[in-house]
């Protein structure tokens, strides 16, 4: 009997609940495992993308390289959720947020240990890898 071809479902590990498992950007998960948050940059035109993508909509090339997100971004906005959607009830309360790094932006969560009183629009925050209690991986924004 022919061996069943294994599919690359690494993306299942992303977030409290992952809604998709197959993507050409699966190496993102290996980078998280190694403590790095990464985006992609088009080798053709140099445009940087976060979230990472496999295809460049600027020059239509499909040749990307990974870059590590470093330094700080500016907090564009955030919201603290008191209710979560199905599958996230055990996480509440938590803050979703957007950081602006200049050439790209990152959507994610603010670290649970950063009190809401310490959060203000415009403040600098850095992006770090976070392991969730259920073993899943994501990234969070925290004080630099």
């Amino acid at each position, binding site marked *: 009997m022919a061996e069943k071809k294994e599919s690359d479902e690494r993306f299942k590990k992303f977030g409290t*609940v992952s*809604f998709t498992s197959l993507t050409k950007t699966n190496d993102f998960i290996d980078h998280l495992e190694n403590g790095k948050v990464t985006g992609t940059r088009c080798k053709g035109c140099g445009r940087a993308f976060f*979230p990472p993508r496999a295809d460049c909509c600027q020059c239509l090339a499909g040749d990307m390289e990974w870059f590590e997100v470093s330094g700080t971004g500016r907090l564009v906005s955030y919201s603290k959720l008191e209710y979560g959607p*199905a599958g996230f009830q055990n996480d509440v309360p*938590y803050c*979703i947020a957007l950081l602006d790094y200049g050439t*790209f*932006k990152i959507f994610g969560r603010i670290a649970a240990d950063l009190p809401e009183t310490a959060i203000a629009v415009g403040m600098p925050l850095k992006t770090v890898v976070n392991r969730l209690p259920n073993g899943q991986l994501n990234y969070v924004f925290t004080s630099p």
Partner: protein
Amino acid sequence: MPRVAIIGVGQSEFVRAYPGSVRELAFEGFKEAMRDAGLTPKDIGASVVCSAPEYDKQRSPAGVFAEYFGLNPQPTFYVESLCSSSSMGLRLAYSLVKSGLHDVVAVVGFQKMSEITSAESQERMGRGADIQWESPFGTMMPAYYAMYARAHMAAYGTSLEDLALIRVKAATYGQLNDKAVYRKPVTLANLSNPEDRMAGPVASPLRVGDCCANADGSSCVIVASEEKAKTFCHKPVWILGLGAATTSVNLAGREVFTGLTAAREAARQAYAMAGLGPKEIDVAEVHDCFTIAEMMAYEDLGFAQPGGGKELIRSRATYKEGEIPVNVDGGLLSKGHPIGATGGSQIRTIVLQLREEAGPIQVKQPEIGLVHNIGGVGLYGNVSIFGR
């Protein structure tokens, strides 16, 4: 160039949980619009059915409705753009009529959100965002709009009380709307008293009172060629301008957080097509799924400068007697928001206004009306301008 008209409008009552099937729910809006237009099913050349299908158990409802409505063997189309589906349906109907392919087209919007639980529904709505890169963080519609609210507050000094004023206005008119799901009065005190349910936190800074409710409902708009409109209808309402636009689904791909760029672009297109500007709009329906959404709509539509929306609500300029009445049917905040039916309900209100048949909410002799209908968190923007 021959014009395109709306010759009939209808909607069901919007309710928490409709005690019937989706075809029966959709029939209610259809029946009202057909009676309004004085048509029989053989007069309809095609139908356009609009909804967000992830709420449905029935697969491909358009074909099911065609039979139930007596519209066989005419063709039917299915259109989805989240919460602006029926405005997108209007755009399709306009092009079908304008092309000469069909003379009379029924745009049917519906949603039976009660088929699934509230938590499931929130999860479905969260999946209207980027499921690969955003939903794994636990996103919900109120939280996305809350991020816009916080950015608007930080940039312009908009306050929670300004947002509460929008809810108070909505409730003022919701009490007069016998099709609305929420008909109780709401005061500023309700939203500022921490003990009050209306002030309960949802996603900061938005409170329960800042959010519209899920609902079951249906709507129908009948679109006709100029020739047919003049045959069937003594008060046709003309489609003067249509705009539709998109933006990045992931917030990371956006540049503006104090307004919706798809709404601004759709407005620009609609004004250009109609040859009109914001000052010429006499009455408007805007997509107030959240209070902040109405505030941003004032600015995105040009009724106020960026940051000036709060002055409009503080001065009551958007009340029925004001300079630019907005959502005098109670808006989504009072009516409830049955996704696929919402745009058609907004269009119905404007058509009734332009015919001067809007009863207790009638504004004084409006000539030009506007509908602003948004899908997702500004992912899709539709703006439509109508005249009598």
